[in-house]
């Protein structure tokens, strides 16, 4: 049987790949273009990157994003790992309900999550700021951590824990000395995923951030709304690079033995 593909199929595929990747590629290339207004190539420059350092709003946004991302990552990694341990190892009542709970954040449109959390915080008279952003990010990150860690647990050898207990270790010692070291790559990979999602989030954050607590995506969105300038290309390139590195690390860890 012939396995050659028709030429038009390959052409369509080529066009689609072009369409999927060209925009971002162009964006990155022009972050090095030495012209403020033109989309003609006027030579290589790093001035748009230098300009970023002179903008206090971007630096403040970056700081806010790192604080929120760090806190949200740690909280969702711990809570998500505990949930994954329960789902992977324990039989308990309410399991189906919990599984349902974990799916809801994955399918809920971001705009719905954002406004419902805003309503909660306003009702509780909780001042909007870094704390509310962190709470929101944890709420949508937990499910993803659970999925990643659960996959790791399901691939783990339960005999090792049994062996440790037979050799005289109690449950807590076994947990720290046997379970956690095996789970560690899964937890780290889930944590990096959570950080990436937190660092990237615009829609939910825009509802639960208050004055003076703008994260980096909020600042970038403001810049995009105002006008299109090469600095946005530069900051976009940095965000892309940072995300790519984090995802690469998460992937490496998830596959680690």
């Amino acid at each position: 049987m012939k396995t050659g593909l028709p030429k038009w199929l390959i052409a369509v595929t080529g066009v689609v790949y072009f369409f999927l990747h060209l925009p971002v590629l162009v964006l990155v290339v022009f972050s090095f273009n030495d012209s403020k207004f033109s989309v003609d190539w006027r030579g290589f420059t790093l001035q748009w990157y230098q300009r970023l350092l002179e903008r206090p709003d971007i630096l403040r946004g970056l700081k806010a994003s790192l604080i929120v991302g760090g806190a949200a990552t740690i909280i969702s990694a711990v809570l998500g790992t505990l949930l994954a341990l329960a789902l992977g190892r324990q039989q308990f009542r309410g399991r189906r309900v919990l599984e349902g709970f974990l799916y809801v954040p994955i399918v809920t449109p971001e705009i719905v999550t954002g406004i419902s959390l805003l309503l909660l915080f306003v009702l509780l008279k909780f001042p909007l700021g870094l704390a509310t952003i962190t709470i929101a990010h944890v709420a949508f990150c937990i499910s993803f951590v659970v999925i990643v860690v659960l996959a790791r647990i399901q691939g783990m050898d339960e005999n090792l824990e049994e062996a440790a207990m037979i050799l005289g270790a109690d449950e807590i010692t076994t947990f720290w000395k046997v379970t956690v070291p095996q789970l560690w790559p899964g937890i780290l990979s889930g944590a990096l995923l959570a950080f990436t999602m937190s660092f990237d989030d615009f829609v939910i954050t825009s509802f639960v951030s208050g004055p003076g607590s703008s994260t980096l995506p909020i600042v970038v969105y403001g810049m995009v709304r105002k006008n299109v300038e090469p600095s946005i290309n530069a900051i976009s390139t940095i965000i892309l690079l940072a995300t790519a590195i984090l995802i690469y690390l998460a992937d490496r860890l998830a596959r680690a033995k």
Partner: protein
Amino acid sequence: MPAFRERALAWLYTRPQARAWALVAPGGFWLLAFFMVPLLIMLVYSLMPRGIYGGVEPGFTLEHYARFFDPLYLQVLQRTFAWSIGCTVICLFLGYPVAYVIARSQRWRTFLLFLVVLPFWTSFLVRTFAMIFLMRDTGLINSWLLKLGMIDEPLTMLYTPFAVMAGLVYGFLPFMILPIYASLEKVDHSLLEAAEVLGARPAARFRRVTLPLSTPGVVAGSLLVFIPALGSFLTADLLGGAKQVMIGNLVQNQFSSARNWPFGSAASFIVMALVLAAVMLYLRVKDRSAGGAPPL
């Protein structure tokens, strides 16, 4: 306190339910308090009369849902539906050939798949900005077309339905390709050989063997594109301007400038209900195809 530790251990050991719940409690609480309860508050808000400064007043009303029969808002709903469906159809026609090529390729498969997954990890905001950079009046497409002499003045692309549709397809196309690829990859090759032996031409082999077997992937991919398109906000916001409003933008507007929170909550609840209906459909299809579709 070793005594306490011993006692706690013994207690947990004899009660597996308690042990499980000790693990579930913190995360479960977070999801309950900061996801489920807010959704419930949103539902309650949507059923209460509007207050003066954006809040609500005590009482019960269905007026916010009734407002969707107003032609103005009906139009937003219709547009959201039409665009989400349009986006799904375009993604299907672009995505199916790509999935087919990936499934049939040997040496390049990993690389081709990697290129499809890559956009998932690219900031959506950055990707949407990339579209602006290409499509605005002084953008790359216009400047190249002008230089090639194909047009005399810039085409207006940004802030048109075309821009929104391009942005939606660009944003969600990978969701279509992956499930179709997953189901095509599983197609048993001997069935195709049997069809060939029995005299079926390539077109007939595709239409009567490959296509029916890839239906679960097509359905899954369609829903995975339709669901986020329905609830999308950024695309229409940045590429559509003030006129091309989708329901996500309507919701956002009620919470920013219009300050009609209960109406915004009602709109938001409608989005949520539509999405949940689509998810139910997805899960049913997934069950029937016995793991033919990837998990959400």
